């Protein structure tokens, strides 16, 4: 169990990490999700022992890590661009932590073969790392990290440098490797999908503070406040009568008259829908049409329409609310 208590990091007057407390049970993957500049990388570096703490405590299995240098913490760090050692080939990179632990030669090469198999790169042992693609470099870097058998694997935006299809494929592989090897991992990222695919639990970090954390699915659907909701992709915020009207139409009980946050997917242009709206603008996106609507009695909202929908400004349309994309704040 990795536990952070009231952890703070300062750079001069700037408070980069502000009294962060988190717990990560063994075998789980925790994602710290936040926009760039929120302090999440600093948090990761502090856990690794690469930044001095201004306050608080990091402990692993009940043991305080204060004063334990990076190389004795038993972690491994995976950066977004791999940081492979360029003067070593693939096998030597993966063997690096094994050598450090004095694993003998034959055992080392057997493990290197196993690990290359695990990350899906058999036969890559003797390749020069500079000849690898970005995705291959990340896989090798992952194998190198796993070779250390880290007590906690720290991942800094591990997939952000890759293109989209590769990112999605590697995210799936990474998830099954992490669960398959029962690796405890802490991931920081700004990418919702990356966090969603990889993590069991999610913590949202804004301006140095953890503002919400819990199981990934819960955080995703139940943001605690408007800032978190905005960061998680909720784009329309309603209060008062409009909020009630939309919630009621979606069958969402809202007795406390809480403000309502909507993702685009919460409102769908649909001839069967019970709400009415006027089209202000429509833009095609990859698998749908994004529409800015003026919802009758509510005001401007964002909605989605089927990919083949033809919407021109001024059109009158019907809208079906979907409570899956809604959250009460």
């Amino acid at each position, binding site marked *: 169990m990795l536990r952070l208590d009231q952890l703070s990091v300062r750079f001069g007057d700037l408070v980069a990490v502000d009294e962060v407390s988190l717990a990560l049970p063994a075998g789980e993957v925790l994602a710290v999700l936040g926009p760039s500049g929120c302090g999440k990388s600093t948090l990761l570096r502090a856990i690794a022992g690469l930044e001095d703490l201004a306050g608080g405590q990091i402990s692993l299995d009940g043991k305080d890590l204060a004063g334990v*240098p990076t*190389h004795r*913490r038993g972690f491994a760090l995976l950066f977004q661009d791999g*940081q492979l050692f360029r003067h070593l080939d693939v096998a030597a990179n993966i063997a*690096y*932590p094994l050598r*450090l632990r004095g694993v003998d030669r034959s055992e080392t090469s057997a493990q290197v073969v196993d690990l290359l198999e695990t990350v899906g790169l058999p036969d890559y042992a003797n390749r020069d790392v500079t000849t690898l693609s970005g995705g291959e470099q990340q896989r090798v870097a992952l194998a190198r990290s796993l070779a250390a058998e880290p007590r906690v694997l720290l991942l800094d935006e591990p997939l952000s440098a890759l293109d989209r299809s590769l990112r999605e494929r590697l995210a799936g592989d990474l998830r099954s490797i992490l669960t398959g090897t029962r690796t405890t991992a802490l991931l920081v990222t700004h990418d919702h999908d990356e966090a969603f695919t990889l993590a069991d639990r999610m913590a949202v970090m804004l301006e140095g503070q953890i503002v919400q954390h819990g199981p990934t699915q819960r955080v995703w659907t139940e943001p605690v406040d408007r800032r978190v909701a905005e960061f998680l992709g909720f784009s329309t915020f309603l209060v008062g009568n409009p909020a009630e009207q939309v919630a009621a139409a979606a069958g969402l009980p809202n007795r406390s008259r809480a403000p309502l946050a909507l993702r685009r997917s919460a409102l769908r242009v649909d001839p069967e829908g019970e709400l009415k709206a006027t089209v202000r603008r429509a833009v095609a996106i990859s698998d749908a049409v994004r529409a800015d609507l003026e919802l009758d009695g509510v005001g401007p909202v964002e909605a989605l329409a089927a990919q083949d929908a033809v919407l021109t400004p001024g059109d009158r349309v019907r809208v079906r609310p979907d409570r899956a994309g809604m959250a009460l704040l």
Partner: protein
Amino acid sequence: MGRHHHRLVPERLVPALGVTLLALLPLAFLTVFFVLPVGGMLVRGFYPDGAWDLSGVGEVLGRDRTARVLGFTIGMATLGTALTLTLGLPLAFVLYRLVFPGRALLRAIVVMPFVLPTVVVGVMFRALLSSGGPLGFLGWDRSWTAILLAFVFFNLAVVVRTVGGMWEGLDRRAEESAAALGASPTHVFRTVTLPALLPSIVSAGTLVFLFCSTAFGVVLTLGGLRYGTIESEIYLLTTEFLDLQGAAVLSVIQLLAVVVMLTLAARARARSEATTDRAAARSVARRPRAGDAPLLVVAGLVVAFVLTPVLTLVLRSLRGGSGWTLEHYRSLGDAGASPAMRVSILDAVQNSLSTAVDATMIAMVLGVCVSIVVSRRPRAAWASRLVSVLDGAFMLPLGISAVTVGFGFLITLDRPPLDLRTSAVLVPIAQALVALPLVVRTITPVLRSVDPRIRQAASALGAPPMRAAWTAEGPVLGRPLLAATGFAFAVSLGEFGATSFLARPDRPTVPVMIYDLISRPGVENMGMALAASVVLSLLTVTVMGVVERLRVGSVGAF
């Protein structure tokens, strides 16, 4: 409609044409003032009376003295390089990976010796080690140890600048990955940092070896002609024994060695440019920790080692027969103060300044041309090879015997159409030749660091090739140009080797006068040499202080 004119000349040839024209001027200069003199010197040696005569080669090589000179040169250069690297690496770490108050000042202090005139460095170590000096009890005056110390003093800047610049820019995340995987700090250094630094260490080490093995002013002032290095031997054979064949043989050996070393350095430089991931804007420097104490101590001692000769020089220049005095400084304006002089030292300062201004202008014009040419990255393999050959060619003056060049000037530029022997332009030209490689090494890395996509973007927006290059590279050039100008000026001010051959007796420069003064006995002569050295150091250090404030990392880095 006018836009279609461009199409008459194939677009891709336009930049090639411009670059070729740019290359011609410096190439012509190099040919006339470098290849010709050096060639002339070699011809005198190997082709004396209108016929090839290589019979002397074996004889010269077989001489005991030649073997001794070569052995001493290589031995001293090896020792000098090893010592400079050993002391320079900790200093590079402290000055480029740690942040602490006063760092900028320390960086300036460490780079200073590189531009101090060699003769002045000689005078400093004499002042320090001679019998009346603070370290006179060591008995190192006029010994090889003194020369070795001066080598280290002079070349530390090369190591600190070259390796430090690289170290500062290394992406620290590679080291952090290794540490997280369980590598201890020393293990991280050995397995990650050192391999990444190796190209810059090789590059700096090769250059230091080169500077040590071709040093002239330092050897002459510290060892007299007692210790023959290859350079002082060439001087001796040329001027004292008129053994031009012997000198030519040694020059050729030196030339070959220099080419080999420059090639090695260029390879290492190319590798370090290719393999570094420059850290994206994040500063890797950190505050000192307790574990840095040993390195901080070493760095402190090295800085003390740099400051001691300087302070000794200043203090001793203020000492007379009866305590503290300004008499040495007062006599600087007096042309009759010593029989060694025909003009006053203040006149010599004036000569030095005006010569250095001329030399700087020549070096800058040529240096900018060369830098633009060698920073291109042509796509064709032959063209890019040509560029790297040019790059190397303009480095040659850095290592070739100043004596060979100086003497070569005298024997080849002495008849029409180029009868320059009595002309005052020879000195600035020779100095410009020495400063040129340093100008190129200051400006080229800056040009190379400009992302080529900026130029491509400008081209795509409709800028013709020259305009596109100017848009991309012009804005970054300001400070490097100023820095290179100051650097060239400082180096020209202190140039001794070639100038000593070419300066006319009635128009000596300060380094030449200092050498004249210290080669004569007498306390007054030494005192004036000390005062003149202080004045000259002040000039160069002031110039370099300004350069240092410009914060151009490539100054003095190789």
